[in-house]
Each structure stands twice: as structure tokens, then as C-alpha cells.
């Protein structure tokens, strides 16, 4: 196996392991004219470009979350000079696998997304990582703030989120 083949195989593994998480986060950050699929593509591009910089100081998934959040936040803040829709690559496709989800669950999900979207940007970045089931330690490593800080913030964010979603569900 050549180095290039090894790199491609490694990248494939990273994509397979994280693609759904990346798409979930991109969905929360996509703002017109950008679609989640555009951000997803940009995140994969950034991961591929930076993969050789991964030093193993944190878990690979934590590193992927960092890149995902950085790319998404940059797009949201319009820090990119060209924040237009990117040309979609033929090699990435998204398909609705089934329509079997219950309407009630979809409704709950919409409430959740709506309530997350209403949070401050910094809170949003923390809650999406929490919902991805990252520990406070991993959230701290991803965001660059201390674990205690994450705990304090999470207490308040949880309260806000539940305050928003609970009345909608009852």
C-alpha cells in the first residue's frame, strides 16, 4: 500500500466514523445561502487538508469536532471572504433513507433545533458537543475553555434549553 493509499484509507475511516456527527453540527450552523451540505463538504475538505497535522494529543473525534465547529462558526460569522455556495462534489450524496420516523419525534426534533438556534453562539457550540455525547473534558479540549468552565456553562445552558423546549412538549 502506498502512502497516498494509506492516507486515503485513513481519511475514509475518519469520514465514516464522523459523518453523521459532522452533518448534525453543520445543520445547526447553516445559514442561507449556505446549506448544511456545503458546510459538510467544507469540513471534509478542511479535515483532509489538516489530517497530517493531527498529533494525537487529543482523541481524533475531538479533533474532528474542533475542525467542524471552526469551519461552521467561521461560515456563520461570515469570516470567510467567499461565503457563497460551494460547487457540490459528485462524490458526496445525501439521501433520505426512510420516511418511517414518527411525526411526533420529528416535531420534538424541530423544537430542539429551534431552541438550540435561539441560544447564543458560544452556548450553541457547547450544547451541540454535549448532545454529541462528549464529556466535559472533551468539550473543554474542543473549545479551549476549562472543564470547570464547561460545567458552569452547561448548568445554565441546560436550564435555558429545557426552559425553551419543555413548554412546547406539554
Amino acid at each position, binding site marked *: 500500500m502506498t502512502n497516498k493509499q494509506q492516507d486515503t484509507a485513513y*481519511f475514509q475511516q475518519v469520514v*465514516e466514523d464522523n459523518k453523521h456527527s459532522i*452533518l448534525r453540527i453543520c445543520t445547526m450552523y447553516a445559514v442561507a445561502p449556505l446549506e448544511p451540505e456545503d458546510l459538510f463538504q467544507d469540513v*471534509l475538505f478542511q479535515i483532509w487538508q489538516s489530517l497530517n497535522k493531527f498529533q494525537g494529543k487529543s482523541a481524533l473525534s475531538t479533533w474532528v469536532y474542533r475542525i467542524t465547529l*471552526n469551519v461552521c462558526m467561521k461560515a456563520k460569522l461570515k469570516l470567510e471572504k467567499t461565503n457563497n455556495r460551494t460547487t457540490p462534489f459528485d462524490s458526496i450524496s*445525501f439521501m433520505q433513507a426512510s420516511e418511517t420516523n414518527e411525526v411526533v419525534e420529528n416535531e420534538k426534533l424541530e423544537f430542539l433545533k429551534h431552541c438550540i438556534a435561539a441560544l447564543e453562539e458560544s452556548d450553541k457550540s457547547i450544547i451541540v458537543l454535549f*448532545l454529541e455525547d462528549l464529556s466535559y473534558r472533551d468539550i473543554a479540549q474542543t*473549545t*479551549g475553555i476549562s472543564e470547570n468552565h464547561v460545567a458552569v456553562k452547561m448548568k445554565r445552558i441546560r436550564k435555558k434549553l429545557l426552559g425553551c423546549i419543555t413548554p412546547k412538549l406539554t
Partner: protein
Amino acid sequence: MEDNELKQLWSQSTSNVEIKVDVTTLVVEFETKITKMGQVIKTRDTREYAASLFGMVVFAYFLIEIPFPLTKIASGLAIIWFGYVVFKINKTKKLSSRVGAELPVLAQLQLEKSALLEQKNLLKTAAFWYVIPPFLMNLLWITGLGSPVDYQWETWASAYLPISTNTKLFCVLGLAVFYGFTIWINLYAAKHKFEPLIKKTEILEAHLGSIEQEK
């Protein structure tokens, strides 16, 4: 609602989406994209350097050829200024290339902010390094133009020289308007493009980094 319920609900949001990524083809597409990006940057850099080099060659010719002392001095200063512009552009390129997506979010925001601040300052100070020096050089260059006959200078430019004071004044006024517009456009970009971005970044950084407000 419990944390686990929220997490489960969240994870379901893409459960009915099938994501297909043909990595082998994707890598080829990425490589093509990088090559294209590289070519765009290379073309832009070549254009910038070529323009500066062209300016240097033209003013070097003036420096050697033209006998008028003030115009000679202005030509020499112009060559130095073109060199300085190349140095400044290179420095700015290094600034924008150091922003890394693999850093923790807070560190990335801080780095992004400092790059934006430096770019904003570059625009705000453009009058002092990009506008006033060439304007003064042009002023000196035009003012210094005398009569070839006085210097026994045989040149194809004799047909156009000397130029009248009114013509010189007209040229200087035209240049003043042009350079004034350049200052305005730089200040406008600093205020309307960079300041809002810096402010947004600062707010996000403050919210993420500050713990005081949480207590």
C-alpha cells in the same frame, strides 16, 4: 426532559439520512480544488510582483535617463517604495495563512481576531504607507520636470517638455483626487467590512471565554 432523551433525539436528526461519500473520487476532487486554488494564488502573486517589477524598471530608467534633480530623486524613492510594497504584501500573506482550523475554538477565534485586526490596521494606515508616499513622489516627480534644453538632454520627450505650471497643477490635482479616493475606499473597508467582523468575533470570544457572567 432528561439529558439522555435530548441526546437520543439529537442523534436521530440524521438517522434517516444516508450519507454516501466516495472517498477515492473525493480525494481527487480535493486535489483538483487545491491545484486550482494554488494556481489562482500563483497568478495573483505573479501579477502583483510583475506590476512592482515593472514599476521598478520604469523608474530605474527615469532615474538613469532624466537629468532633472528632483525628478531623479523621486524616481529613486519610487523604486524603494515599490520594494516596500512587495515586502508589505508578503507580510500580510503570512498573517492570513497562519489561521488554523484544527486549533481549539477559543484559540482559533483569538488568532482570527488578531489577523483581522492587523488587516484592519493595514487598511486604516494605508494613507501613510500606500497613498501619501507615492503621492509625494509623484508631486516631486512632476514638479521636478524642467526643460531638456537647460540640461542639454536630447530625448524623444522634448516634444512634450517643458510642461506649463498649469498642466503640472492639473496633474497634481488629478492625482490628489485619485489618492484621496484610495484613502476613502481603504477606510470604508476597514470600518464597514472589518470592524463588524472583529466585533462579532470579540463578542463570541468574550461569551465563550468569560466565566464571570456565569456565576
